[in-house]
Protein backbone atom coordinates (compact mmCIF):
# COMPACT_ATOMS: atom_id res chain seq x y z
CA UNK A 1 0.00 0.00 0.00
CA UNK A 2 2.79 2.30 0.76
CA UNK A 3 4.10 1.73 -2.67
CA UNK A 4 0.79 2.59 -4.14
CA UNK A 5 0.55 5.71 -2.15
CA UNK A 6 4.03 6.64 -3.13
CA UNK A 7 3.22 5.88 -6.68
CA UNK A 8 0.14 7.98 -6.67
CA UNK A 9 2.02 10.81 -5.11
CA UNK A 10 4.67 10.50 -7.76
CA UNK A 11 2.11 10.49 -10.51
CA UNK A 12 0.38 13.49 -9.08
CA UNK A 13 3.63 15.29 -8.86
CA UNK A 14 4.36 14.47 -12.46
CA UNK A 15 0.94 15.68 -13.40
CA UNK A 16 1.51 19.00 -11.74
CA UNK A 17 5.04 19.43 -12.93
CA UNK A 18 4.18 18.91 -16.55
CA UNK A 19 1.27 21.28 -16.17
CA UNK A 20 -1.13 18.61 -17.24
CA UNK A 21 -3.30 19.00 -14.21
CA UNK A 22 -4.05 22.61 -15.01
CA UNK A 23 -4.55 21.57 -18.57
CA UNK A 24 -7.21 19.09 -17.63
CA UNK A 25 -8.88 21.55 -15.38
CA UNK A 26 -9.11 24.12 -18.13
CA UNK A 27 -10.55 21.44 -20.33
CA UNK A 28 -13.18 20.46 -17.80
CA UNK A 29 -14.42 23.89 -16.88
CA UNK A 30 -15.92 25.03 -20.20
CA UNK A 31 -17.28 21.55 -20.80
CA UNK A 32 -19.17 21.66 -17.54
CA UNK A 33 -20.47 25.14 -18.28
CA UNK A 34 -21.79 24.34 -21.69
CA UNK A 35 -23.49 21.15 -20.55
CA UNK A 36 -25.45 23.21 -18.04
CA UNK A 37 -23.91 21.36 -15.15
CA UNK A 38 -23.27 24.68 -13.52
CA UNK A 39 -26.85 25.88 -13.92
CA UNK A 40 -28.24 22.72 -12.43
CA UNK A 41 -25.87 22.96 -9.54
CA UNK A 42 -26.81 26.58 -9.07
CA UNK A 43 -30.44 25.71 -8.72
CA UNK A 44 -29.47 23.14 -6.10
CA UNK A 45 -27.39 25.78 -4.37
CA UNK A 46 -30.31 28.13 -4.19
CA UNK A 47 -32.39 25.50 -2.55
CA UNK A 48 -29.70 24.79 -0.02
CA UNK A 49 -29.25 28.46 0.73
CA UNK A 50 -32.95 29.03 1.14
CA UNK A 51 -33.04 26.09 3.42
CA UNK A 52 -30.14 27.15 5.54
CA UNK A 53 -30.84 30.86 5.42
CA UNK A 54 -28.96 33.50 3.44
CA UNK A 55 -27.15 35.05 6.36
CA UNK A 56 -25.78 31.95 7.95
CA UNK A 57 -24.49 29.98 5.06
CA UNK A 58 -20.87 28.87 5.25
CA UNK A 59 -18.44 27.43 2.78
CA UNK A 60 -18.33 24.13 4.58
CA UNK A 61 -22.07 23.80 4.42
CA UNK A 62 -22.07 24.51 0.78
CA UNK A 63 -19.25 22.13 0.08
CA UNK A 64 -20.84 19.35 2.05
CA UNK A 65 -24.11 19.79 0.22
CA UNK A 66 -22.92 20.55 -3.21
CA UNK A 67 -20.00 18.27 -3.90
CA UNK A 68 -21.80 14.94 -3.98
CA UNK A 69 -24.51 16.41 -6.13
CA UNK A 70 -21.92 17.92 -8.39
CA UNK A 71 -20.10 14.68 -8.83
CA UNK A 72 -23.29 12.96 -9.74
CA UNK A 73 -24.43 15.60 -12.17
CA UNK A 74 -21.43 15.41 -14.45
CA UNK A 75 -22.66 14.08 -17.78
CA UNK A 76 -21.21 10.83 -19.02
CA UNK A 77 -19.69 12.23 -22.16
CA UNK A 78 -17.58 14.63 -20.22
CA UNK A 79 -16.55 11.92 -17.82
CA UNK A 80 -15.52 9.56 -20.53
CA UNK A 81 -13.52 12.10 -22.41
CA UNK A 82 -11.65 13.19 -19.36
CA UNK A 83 -10.86 9.66 -18.33
CA UNK A 84 -9.58 8.94 -21.78
CA UNK A 85 -7.19 11.82 -21.61
CA UNK A 86 -5.94 10.80 -18.20
CA UNK A 87 -5.29 7.30 -19.37
CA UNK A 88 -3.37 8.58 -22.32
CA UNK A 89 -1.28 10.69 -20.08
CA UNK A 90 -0.51 7.80 -17.77
CA UNK A 91 0.42 5.47 -20.57
CA UNK A 92 2.71 8.05 -22.04
CA UNK A 93 4.24 8.68 -18.66
CA UNK A 94 4.78 4.98 -18.14
CA UNK A 95 6.49 4.58 -21.48
CA UNK A 96 8.55 7.68 -21.11
CA UNK A 97 9.81 6.70 -17.72
CA UNK A 98 11.29 3.59 -19.22
Amino acid at each position, binding site marked *: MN*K*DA*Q*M*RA*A*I*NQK*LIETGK*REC*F*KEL*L*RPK*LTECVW*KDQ*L*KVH*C*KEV*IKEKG*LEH*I*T*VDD*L*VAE*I*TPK*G*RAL*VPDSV*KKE*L*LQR*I*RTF*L*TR*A*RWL*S*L
Partner: protein
Amino acid sequence: MKMEEMSLSGLDNSKLEAIAQEIYADLVEDSCLGFCFEVHRAVKCGYFFLDDTDPDSMKDFEIVDQPGLDIFGQVFNQWKSKECVCPNCSRSIAASRFAPHLEKCLGMGRNSSRIANRRIANSNNMNKSESDQEDNDDINDNDWSYGSEKKAKKRKSDKLWYLPFQNPNSPRRSKSLKHKNGELSNSDPFKYSNSTGISYETLGPEELRSLLTTQCGVISEHTKKMCTRSLRCPQHTDEQRRTVRIYFLGSSAVLPEVESSLDNDSFDMTDSQALISRLQWDGSSDLSPSDSGSSKTSENQGWGLGTNNSESRKTKKKKSHLSLVGTASGLGSNKKKKPKPPAPPTPSIYDDIN
Protein backbone atom coordinates in the same frame (compact mmCIF):
# COMPACT_ATOMS: atom_id res chain seq x y z
CA MET B 1 12.68 8.22 -8.59
CA LYS B 2 13.98 5.35 -10.56
CA MET B 3 12.32 2.84 -8.34
CA GLU B 4 9.00 4.58 -8.71
CA GLU B 5 9.37 4.81 -12.39
CA MET B 6 10.13 1.14 -12.59
CA SER B 7 7.14 0.33 -10.47
CA LEU B 8 5.07 2.41 -12.79
CA SER B 9 6.03 0.26 -15.67
CA GLY B 10 5.07 -2.79 -13.73
CA LEU B 11 1.53 -1.62 -13.30
CA ASP B 12 -1.24 -3.52 -14.86
CA ASN B 13 -4.14 -1.94 -16.54
CA SER B 14 -6.63 -2.20 -13.74
CA LYS B 15 -4.42 -0.31 -11.43
CA LEU B 16 -3.84 2.22 -14.11
CA GLU B 17 -7.55 2.55 -14.51
CA ALA B 18 -8.03 2.99 -10.81
CA ILE B 19 -5.45 5.73 -10.77
CA ALA B 20 -7.13 7.39 -13.69
CA GLN B 21 -10.43 7.34 -11.88
CA GLU B 22 -8.86 8.86 -8.88
CA ILE B 23 -7.35 11.63 -10.86
CA TYR B 24 -10.66 12.28 -12.50
CA ALA B 25 -12.43 12.43 -9.17
CA ASP B 26 -9.89 14.89 -7.91
CA LEU B 27 -10.44 17.12 -10.88
CA VAL B 28 -14.19 17.12 -10.52
CA GLU B 29 -13.94 17.84 -6.83
CA ASP B 30 -11.73 20.77 -7.57
CA SER B 31 -14.31 22.16 -9.95
CA CYS B 32 -17.07 21.72 -7.40
CA LEU B 33 -15.00 23.43 -4.77
CA GLY B 34 -14.33 26.33 -7.08
CA PHE B 35 -18.02 26.60 -7.79
CA CYS B 36 -18.84 26.59 -4.11
CA PHE B 37 -16.45 29.42 -3.47
CA GLU B 38 -18.07 31.46 -6.22
CA VAL B 39 -21.52 30.89 -4.85
CA HIS B 40 -20.51 31.66 -1.31
CA ARG B 41 -18.91 34.91 -2.39
CA ALA B 42 -21.97 35.83 -4.42
CA VAL B 43 -24.18 35.17 -1.44
CA LYS B 44 -22.06 37.21 0.91
CA CYS B 45 -21.69 40.07 -1.57
CA GLY B 46 -25.37 40.01 -2.20
CA TYR B 47 -25.55 39.44 -5.91
CA PHE B 48 -26.46 35.81 -5.90
CA PHE B 49 -30.16 36.26 -6.35
CA LEU B 50 -29.91 39.22 -8.74
CA ASP B 51 -30.76 37.38 -11.89
CA ASP B 52 -34.02 36.15 -10.46
CA THR B 53 -37.11 37.98 -11.57
CA ASP B 54 -40.63 37.63 -10.28
CA PRO B 55 -43.26 36.48 -12.71
CA ASP B 56 -45.14 39.79 -12.59
CA SER B 57 -42.34 41.85 -14.05
CA MET B 58 -41.63 39.01 -16.46
CA LYS B 59 -45.09 39.49 -17.88
CA ASP B 60 -44.61 43.21 -18.32
CA PHE B 61 -41.64 42.74 -20.61
CA GLU B 62 -42.84 39.77 -22.53
CA ILE B 63 -42.02 39.85 -26.21
CA VAL B 64 -44.94 41.05 -28.32
CA ASP B 65 -45.62 39.22 -31.54
CA GLN B 66 -48.67 40.94 -32.99
CA PRO B 67 -48.92 42.37 -36.45
CA GLY B 68 -48.54 46.14 -36.68
CA LEU B 69 -46.57 46.32 -33.44
CA ASP B 70 -42.89 46.02 -32.66
CA ILE B 71 -41.63 43.62 -30.01
CA PHE B 72 -42.19 46.21 -27.34
CA GLY B 73 -45.80 46.58 -28.33
CA GLN B 74 -45.43 50.09 -29.77
CA VAL B 75 -47.14 51.26 -32.93
CA PHE B 76 -44.85 52.25 -35.75
CA ASN B 77 -46.34 55.52 -37.01
CA GLN B 78 -47.62 56.64 -33.70
CA TRP B 79 -45.66 59.88 -33.45
CA LYS B 80 -46.04 61.05 -37.00
CA SER B 81 -49.56 62.30 -36.74
CA LYS B 82 -49.19 63.70 -33.25
CA GLU B 83 -48.93 67.39 -32.72
CA CYS B 84 -46.84 69.18 -30.15
CA VAL B 85 -47.30 72.61 -28.71
CA CYS B 86 -44.27 74.84 -29.09
CA PRO B 87 -43.33 76.37 -25.73
CA ASN B 88 -42.03 79.51 -27.41
CA CYS B 89 -44.74 80.55 -29.82
CA SER B 90 -47.52 78.32 -28.49
CA ARG B 91 -48.42 76.92 -31.84
CA SER B 92 -49.17 73.30 -32.44
CA ILE B 93 -46.59 71.82 -34.75
CA ALA B 94 -46.43 68.37 -36.31
CA ALA B 95 -44.07 66.11 -34.43
CA SER B 96 -41.74 65.45 -37.33
CA ARG B 97 -41.35 69.17 -37.98
CA PHE B 98 -41.01 70.08 -34.36
CA ALA B 99 -37.26 70.00 -34.03
CA PRO B 100 -36.47 72.29 -36.98
CA HIS B 101 -39.26 74.62 -35.94
CA LEU B 102 -37.81 74.89 -32.45
CA GLU B 103 -34.40 75.62 -33.88
CA LYS B 104 -35.69 78.60 -35.77
CA CYS B 105 -38.16 79.66 -33.14
CA LEU B 106 -35.60 79.82 -30.36
CA GLY B 107 -32.89 81.25 -32.57
CA MET B 108 -30.40 78.54 -31.80
CA GLY B 109 -28.62 76.25 -34.21
CA ARG B 110 -26.44 76.80 -37.23
CA ASN B 111 -28.91 77.81 -39.85
CA SER B 112 -30.76 80.35 -37.82
CA SER B 113 -27.63 82.30 -36.96
CA ARG B 114 -26.62 82.34 -40.60
CA ILE B 115 -29.98 83.61 -41.70
CA ALA B 116 -29.95 86.26 -38.99
CA ASN B 117 -26.52 87.46 -40.04
CA ARG B 118 -27.62 87.73 -43.60
CA ARG B 119 -30.68 89.67 -42.63
CA ILE B 120 -28.63 92.10 -40.61
CA ALA B 121 -26.16 92.55 -43.41
CA ASN B 122 -28.92 93.15 -45.90
CA SER B 123 -30.61 95.66 -43.71
CA ASN B 124 -27.29 97.39 -43.19
CA ASN B 125 -26.78 97.53 -46.89
CA MET B 126 -30.15 99.04 -47.42
CA ASN B 127 -29.63 101.62 -44.71
CA LYS B 128 -26.14 102.76 -45.56
CA SER B 129 -25.91 102.92 -49.30
CA GLU B 130 -22.61 104.80 -49.33
CA SER B 131 -20.81 102.86 -46.74
CA ASP B 132 -17.88 100.69 -47.64
CA GLN B 133 -19.30 97.77 -45.73
CA GLU B 134 -20.42 95.02 -47.95
CA ASP B 135 -22.23 91.86 -47.14
CA ASN B 136 -20.30 90.41 -44.26
CA ASP B 137 -20.55 86.93 -45.57
CA ASP B 138 -19.12 87.92 -48.90
CA ILE B 139 -16.36 89.94 -47.32
CA ASN B 140 -15.34 87.15 -45.08
CA ASP B 141 -15.40 84.65 -47.86
CA ASN B 142 -13.44 86.86 -50.19
CA ASP B 143 -10.98 87.82 -47.52
CA TRP B 144 -9.92 84.35 -46.91
CA SER B 145 -9.74 82.83 -50.32
CA TYR B 146 -9.51 85.56 -52.90
CA GLY B 147 -7.41 87.94 -50.87
CA SER B 148 -4.72 85.45 -50.09
CA GLU B 149 -4.72 84.23 -53.62
CA LYS B 150 -4.41 87.78 -54.85
CA LYS B 151 -1.55 88.41 -52.47
CA ALA B 152 0.27 85.31 -53.63
CA LYS B 153 -0.19 86.26 -57.24
CA LYS B 154 0.98 89.76 -56.58
CA ARG B 155 4.15 88.63 -54.92
CA LYS B 156 4.87 86.24 -57.68
CA SER B 157 4.53 88.86 -60.35
CA ASP B 158 6.80 91.11 -58.36
CA LYS B 159 9.41 88.42 -58.27
CA LEU B 160 9.27 87.96 -62.00
CA TRP B 161 9.89 91.64 -62.44
CA TYR B 162 12.88 91.87 -60.23
CA LEU B 163 14.67 88.79 -61.35
CA PRO B 164 16.49 90.20 -64.34
CA PHE B 165 17.37 93.37 -62.44
CA GLN B 166 19.10 92.18 -59.35
CA ASN B 167 20.62 95.23 -57.81
CA PRO B 168 21.18 96.06 -54.16
CA ASN B 169 20.91 99.71 -54.93
CA SER B 170 17.97 101.96 -54.78
CA PRO B 171 15.67 101.11 -57.64
CA ARG B 172 14.45 97.85 -56.21
CA ARG B 173 14.57 98.84 -52.62
CA SER B 174 12.91 102.12 -53.04
CA LYS B 175 10.33 100.60 -55.29
CA SER B 176 9.50 98.03 -52.72
CA LEU B 177 9.57 100.61 -49.99
CA LYS B 178 7.41 102.89 -51.96
CA HIS B 179 5.13 100.07 -52.67
CA LYS B 180 4.98 99.30 -49.02
CA ASN B 181 4.38 102.87 -48.12
CA GLY B 182 1.86 103.11 -50.84
CA GLU B 183 0.08 100.09 -49.57
CA LEU B 184 0.24 101.15 -46.00
CA SER B 185 -0.93 104.64 -46.55
CA ASN B 186 -3.54 103.79 -49.05
CA SER B 187 -4.86 100.59 -47.78
CA ASP B 188 -4.86 101.33 -44.07
CA PRO B 189 -7.87 103.57 -44.08
CA PHE B 190 -9.58 101.12 -46.30
CA LYS B 191 -8.35 98.05 -44.64
CA TYR B 192 -11.60 97.25 -43.09
CA SER B 193 -13.70 98.18 -46.03
CA ASN B 194 -12.66 95.43 -48.39
CA SER B 195 -9.76 93.45 -49.59
CA THR B 196 -10.19 93.38 -53.30
CA GLY B 197 -10.32 97.02 -54.23
CA ILE B 198 -10.73 100.58 -53.15
CA SER B 199 -13.82 102.67 -53.43
CA TYR B 200 -12.84 105.76 -55.25
CA GLU B 201 -15.69 107.87 -53.97
CA THR B 202 -14.07 108.45 -50.65
CA LEU B 203 -10.61 109.22 -51.93
CA GLY B 204 -9.27 112.71 -52.15
CA PRO B 205 -7.50 113.94 -55.27
CA GLU B 206 -4.03 113.64 -53.82
CA GLU B 207 -4.67 110.19 -52.55
CA LEU B 208 -6.15 109.24 -55.87
CA ARG B 209 -3.10 110.45 -57.68
CA SER B 210 -0.70 108.58 -55.44
CA LEU B 211 -2.82 105.52 -55.68
CA LEU B 212 -2.89 105.65 -59.43
CA THR B 213 0.86 105.87 -59.61
CA THR B 214 1.39 102.72 -57.62
CA GLN B 215 -1.59 100.57 -58.37
CA CYS B 216 -3.58 99.50 -61.34
CA GLY B 217 -6.66 101.44 -60.36
CA VAL B 218 -9.00 100.10 -62.96
CA ILE B 219 -12.55 100.22 -61.73
CA SER B 220 -14.24 96.87 -61.64
CA GLU B 221 -17.69 96.75 -63.08
CA HIS B 222 -19.03 94.39 -60.46
CA THR B 223 -17.87 96.07 -57.34
CA LYS B 224 -17.34 99.61 -58.59
CA LYS B 225 -13.96 99.61 -56.91
CA MET B 226 -10.45 100.29 -58.04
CA CYS B 227 -8.10 97.42 -58.60
CA THR B 228 -5.31 97.38 -56.05
CA ARG B 229 -3.02 95.15 -57.97
CA SER B 230 0.24 96.26 -59.51
CA LEU B 231 0.58 98.54 -62.46
CA ARG B 232 1.12 95.55 -64.65
CA CYS B 233 -1.75 93.51 -63.38
CA PRO B 234 -2.81 91.03 -66.03
CA GLN B 235 -6.48 91.42 -65.39
CA HIS B 236 -6.63 94.90 -66.88
CA THR B 237 -5.14 96.39 -69.98
CA ASP B 238 -3.10 99.55 -70.28
CA GLU B 239 -5.97 101.13 -72.10
CA GLN B 240 -8.20 100.62 -69.12
CA ARG B 241 -5.62 102.07 -66.84
CA ARG B 242 -5.18 105.08 -69.05
CA THR B 243 -8.92 105.58 -69.18
CA VAL B 244 -9.18 105.53 -65.43
CA ARG B 245 -6.41 108.01 -65.03
CA ILE B 246 -7.86 110.33 -67.58
CA TYR B 247 -11.21 110.05 -65.90
CA PHE B 248 -9.82 110.97 -62.53
CA LEU B 249 -7.00 113.32 -63.25
CA GLY B 250 -8.16 114.94 -66.40
CA SER B 251 -6.79 114.80 -69.90
CA SER B 252 -3.29 115.44 -68.73
CA ALA B 253 -3.23 112.21 -66.81
CA VAL B 254 -0.78 109.63 -68.02
CA LEU B 255 0.18 106.13 -67.10
CA PRO B 256 2.96 105.97 -64.56
CA GLU B 257 5.08 103.92 -66.90
CA VAL B 258 5.14 106.73 -69.34
CA GLU B 259 6.44 109.06 -66.70
CA SER B 260 9.54 106.98 -66.43
CA SER B 261 10.87 108.53 -69.56
CA LEU B 262 10.52 111.88 -67.85
CA ASP B 263 13.63 111.16 -65.90
CA ASN B 264 15.56 110.87 -69.07
CA ASP B 265 14.75 114.51 -69.61
CA SER B 266 15.41 115.44 -66.02
CA PHE B 267 18.87 114.03 -66.27
CA ASP B 268 19.49 116.04 -69.39
CA MET B 269 20.31 113.05 -71.50
CA THR B 270 18.71 111.68 -74.56
CA ASP B 271 16.25 108.95 -73.96
CA SER B 272 18.30 106.16 -75.33
CA GLN B 273 21.51 107.12 -73.56
CA ALA B 274 19.77 107.49 -70.24
CA LEU B 275 18.18 104.13 -70.66
CA ILE B 276 21.41 102.51 -71.58
CA SER B 277 23.30 103.93 -68.66
CA ARG B 278 20.54 103.03 -66.29
CA LEU B 279 20.30 99.58 -67.63
CA GLN B 280 23.99 99.05 -67.31
CA TRP B 281 23.75 100.15 -63.78
CA ASP B 282 20.95 97.71 -63.22
CA GLY B 283 23.20 94.96 -64.39
CA SER B 284 21.14 93.89 -67.31
CA SER B 285 23.15 91.72 -69.56
CA ASP B 286 20.87 91.56 -72.46
CA LEU B 287 21.30 95.15 -73.53
CA SER B 288 24.68 96.39 -74.62
CA PRO B 289 26.14 99.87 -74.76
CA SER B 290 27.11 99.35 -78.34
CA ASP B 291 25.36 101.18 -81.10
CA SER B 292 23.56 98.17 -82.36
CA GLY B 293 22.28 97.44 -78.94
CA SER B 294 21.34 101.00 -78.21
CA SER B 295 19.55 101.40 -81.43
CA LYS B 296 17.64 98.30 -80.64
CA THR B 297 16.85 99.41 -77.17
CA SER B 298 15.71 102.74 -78.34
CA GLU B 299 13.70 100.92 -80.90
CA ASN B 300 12.22 98.78 -78.22
CA GLN B 301 11.50 101.68 -76.07
CA GLY B 302 10.02 103.58 -78.90
CA TRP B 303 7.87 100.69 -79.82
CA GLY B 304 6.44 100.38 -76.38
CA LEU B 305 6.29 103.91 -75.15
CA GLY B 306 7.02 106.08 -78.13
CA THR B 307 3.59 107.49 -78.49
CA ASN B 308 3.66 108.74 -74.98
CA ASN B 309 7.03 110.39 -75.08
CA SER B 310 5.79 113.68 -76.36
CA GLU B 311 3.14 113.83 -73.70
CA SER B 312 5.56 112.95 -70.97
CA ARG B 313 7.80 115.83 -71.77
CA LYS B 314 5.02 118.21 -71.05
CA THR B 315 4.14 116.86 -67.63
CA LYS B 316 6.90 116.34 -65.12
CA LYS B 317 5.89 114.36 -62.16
CA LYS B 318 7.50 111.16 -61.23
CA LYS B 319 10.26 109.83 -59.06
CA SER B 320 13.25 108.02 -60.34
CA HIS B 321 12.88 104.63 -58.81
CA LEU B 322 9.40 104.17 -60.06
CA SER B 323 10.36 105.29 -63.49
CA LEU B 324 13.35 103.02 -63.52
CA VAL B 325 11.36 100.03 -62.74
CA GLY B 326 8.75 101.20 -65.11
CA THR B 327 11.37 101.38 -67.77
CA ALA B 328 12.82 98.10 -66.83
CA SER B 329 9.48 96.48 -66.81
CA GLY B 330 8.61 98.07 -70.10
CA LEU B 331 11.79 96.80 -71.59
CA GLY B 332 11.32 93.51 -69.95
CA SER B 333 7.95 93.12 -71.51
CA ASN B 334 9.27 94.26 -74.82
CA LYS B 335 12.02 91.80 -74.52
CA LYS B 336 9.52 89.06 -74.23
CA LYS B 337 7.87 90.12 -77.39
CA LYS B 338 11.08 90.44 -79.32
CA PRO B 339 13.43 87.81 -78.09
CA LYS B 340 15.76 87.81 -81.05
CA PRO B 341 17.23 91.31 -81.16
CA PRO B 342 18.74 91.37 -77.71
CA ALA B 343 20.55 88.09 -78.24
CA PRO B 344 23.35 89.06 -80.55
CA PRO B 345 24.60 92.03 -78.47
CA THR B 346 25.30 89.81 -75.48
CA PRO B 347 28.79 88.71 -76.30
CA SER B 348 29.80 92.27 -77.07
CA ILE B 349 29.13 93.35 -73.49
CA TYR B 350 31.54 90.84 -72.17
CA ASP B 351 34.05 91.94 -74.71
CA ASP B 352 33.75 95.45 -73.43
CA ILE B 353 34.18 94.40 -69.83
CA ASN B 354 37.19 92.34 -70.66
